């Protein structure tokens, strides 16, 4: 016998501590499992690391951020609105975490490597998907059919909403099912006026509702209600918005059965070809660069859409030469992200004696209204608008001219109300959008990186054009003035709704995961983050990731109890 230390062994190993990893940690520990959570990044201590109440006057660059440093170390991350001077420390260093793309086809891969992952900086919008989404692939033939329907996941939406706390207003719409909501946040005067005007013109076809968000409007499960400071993505010392740090990880911690190991960069999974199981994980310590191994009976991949797929691709074996659990050949294929940034904004006349008090960290939502009951000629699927109204701040002065006392007095007051509709469109699952390992590049820990091949198709571009037209039309119907079309040219990835590359399915021949997120080829391997998604809907996906994760955990533990795992 040699003297190599026996690796630590757990009932379950979870890779990733963000949106889905936090849920897996909570569910598996509460069901009695001894769990190891591996997080690639550093620990987060809210009392030390959150930065939400630091005034702009205290920031060295007054909110403009250190431009030169960011061009050097965060040329990709800086594209994300939330990667601001306060919160940029929650985003990765792009130099340490490279990836490659095709020339002229950029993909903005936005990442957070720390305990909590991107759940710290996410935009908190939380909507249920419907059968319009789960049946989409079957209806038009793009991608493969979802192996589940709304009825399969509805109880799990209930379950995660009840724990997380989702504020929202019930609307009774089939394409955007209502949830278990905390009291809704208020619309402001201009939003209410536009909502009513849209209802007069479009009836129940187009409904404007207040955003559904994972933010507490009343005390909930021991967490305090929102105090309306505004920039949630900088952290929240009162834990009023949902993140794994604020909610699920403390619940897992409470069981006494979670070991959370930061600075644990996963290299690959260890597959026992004889036992047909994953037996453990190869880890590189992020600080010492020491190579380590950990053993577990079951494994949950929750590292984020592209990181989970990268780990599987990097775990190739002689049998699975194109990536672990890839007998279907589907691993890495059908990458999707929402296309965002088509829309319009306009000035809403009136209410000049009214203002918003407090910073509502939420907006308005117009659920999908195209291709719901009748089929459009020039595009498949649909889009939804997020947005909101506000009175212009001093910043409007930068766009104008003028100076002196009159400028100062003018900017002391709010400008007119402006309302914005900002579209998010569904992206078709297409095999042309895929990722593979770039054999020529490694990251700062020596791990081979991804090459991402991704571009929006003509269908997404047609959706985008329609977003501009219909937003303009809705603003005109609301009596808006100075309507300005919004036509952003954002690269895929920047919506940070990346999905697909390890899809679920009923048939092992054309899917990586079964209907319970279990790898067809490796029974004790589960993947529950965005990589499992079969289509992209136009609806923000995080709530669905949460529900799918809780559902998969329940299945995994029931299988263990039956002796199947």
């Amino acid at each position, binding site marked *: 016998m040699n003297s190599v230390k026996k690796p630590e062994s757990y009932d379950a190993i979870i890779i990733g501590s963000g949106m889905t990893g936090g849920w897996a940690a909570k569910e598996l520990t509460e069901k009695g499992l001894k769990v190891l959570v591996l997080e690639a990044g550093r620990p987060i201590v*809210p*009392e030390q690391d959150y930065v939400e*109440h630091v005034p702009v006057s205290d920031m060295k660059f*007054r909110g403009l951020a250190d431009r030169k440093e960011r061009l050097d170390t965060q040329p990709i991350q800086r594209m994300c609105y939330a990667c601001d001077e306060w919160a940029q420390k929650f985003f990765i260093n792009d130099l340490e975490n490279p990836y490659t793309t095709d020339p002229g086809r950029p993909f903005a891969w936005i990442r957070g490597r720390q305990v909590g992952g991107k759940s710290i900086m996410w935009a908190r919008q939380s909507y249920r998907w419907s059968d319009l989404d789960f049946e989409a692939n079957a209806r038009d033939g793009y991608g493969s059919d979802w192996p589940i329907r709304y009825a399969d996941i509805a109880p799990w939406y209930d379950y995660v909403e009840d724990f997380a706390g989702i504020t929202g207003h019930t609307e009774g719409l089939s394409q955007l099912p209502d949830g278990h909501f905390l009291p809704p946040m208020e619309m402001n005067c201009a939003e209410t006026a536009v909502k009513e005007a849209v209802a007069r013109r479009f009836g129940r076809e187009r409904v404007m509702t207040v955003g559904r968000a994972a933010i507490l409007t009343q005390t909930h499960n021991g967490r305090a209600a929102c105090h309306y400071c505004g920039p949630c993505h900088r952290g929240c010392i*009162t834990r009023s918005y949902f993140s794994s740090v604020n909610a699920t990880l403390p619940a897992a911690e409470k069981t006494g059965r979670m070991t959370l190991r930061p600075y644990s960069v996963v290299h690959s999974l260890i597959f026992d070809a004889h036992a047909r199981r994953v037996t453990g994980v190869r880890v590189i310590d992020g600080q010492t660069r020491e190579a380590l191994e950990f053993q577990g009976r079951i494994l949950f991949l929750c590292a984020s859409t592209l990181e989970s797929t990268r780990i599987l691709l990097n775990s190739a074996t002689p049998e699975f030469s194109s990536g672990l659990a890839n007998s279907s050949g589907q691993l890495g294929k059908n990458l999707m992200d929402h296309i965002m940034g088509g829309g319009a904004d306009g000035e809403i006349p009136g209410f000049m004696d009214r203002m918003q008090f*407090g910073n509502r960290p939420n907006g308005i939502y117009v659920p999908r209204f195209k291709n719901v009951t009748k089929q459009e000629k020039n595009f498949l699927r649909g889009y939804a608008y997020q947005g909101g109204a506000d*009175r212009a701040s001093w910043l409007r002065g930068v766009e104008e001219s003028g*100076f002196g006392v009159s400028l*100062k007095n003018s900017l002391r007051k709010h400008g007119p109300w402006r309302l914005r509709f900002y579209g998010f469109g569904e992206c078709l699952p297409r095999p042309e959008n895929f990722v593979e390992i770039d054999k020529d590049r490694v990251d700062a820990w020596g791990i081979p990186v991804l090459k991402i091949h991704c571009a929006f198709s003509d269908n997404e571009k047609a959706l985008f054009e329609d977003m501009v037209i219909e937003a303009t039309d809705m603003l005109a119907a609301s009596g808006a003035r100075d309507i300005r079309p919004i036509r952003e040219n954002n690269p895929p990835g920047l919506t940070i709704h990346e999905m697909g590359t390890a899809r679920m399915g009923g048939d092992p021949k054309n899917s990586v995961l079964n209907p319970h997120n279990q790898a067809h080829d490796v029974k004790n391997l589960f993947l529950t983050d965005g990589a499992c998604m079969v289509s992209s809907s136009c609806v923000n996906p995080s709530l669905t990731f949460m529900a799918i994760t809780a559902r998969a955990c329940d299945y995994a533990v029931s299988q263990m109890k039956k002796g199947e795992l």
Partner: protein
Amino acid sequence: MQRRDALRLLGKASVFSVLSTDWLAAKLGAEVAQKAPGALQTLTPAQNDIVVAMSEVIIPATDTPGGKGARVNEFIDLILTEWATDDEKAVFLEGLAEADRRTNELFGRGFAAASPKEQAAIVQGFDDDLAALRNEKIREWIPLWEVPKMAFFEQMRTLTLTGYYTSTIGQEQELKVEIIPGTFNGCALEGPEVKQ
């Protein structure tokens, strides 16, 4: 409610017991520590005089301090030193020289030494140029993360407004910003004390 009051209140409320007083003290201490005026790193004393004077013309003292009182010049010096590209810096410094040239031609002295009326006339000329330029420009989408190319006065005006409204004076005295409002009202009556 100002930030310090709000933080004090937060510290008292039981739901905020997660806040340690050490943490509060550390954050408030950091704010105080940053108040010491830094020595200028890029602007010469003569250039600084122009920036101070012009920032005061753009945002003058009224019932609250103006650009000079908010030390906009120090912010601009930092931006020129650590943030701007070499090209942007060159455009800005050349613009200061141009301001002096124009003032000399019309009034026989440099911008900083000119009377408030003379300074306003010079700034009016720059502002007219900017307004004309903006009318010609077709609004095109510029990504949030990119900095648009600007002529001198557009830089000066943008940096003055930014430096002023993001200063402690701008935030607390001029705009009366509340860091922790505690509540949300989407249709509040605008009081005599306008807040944004």
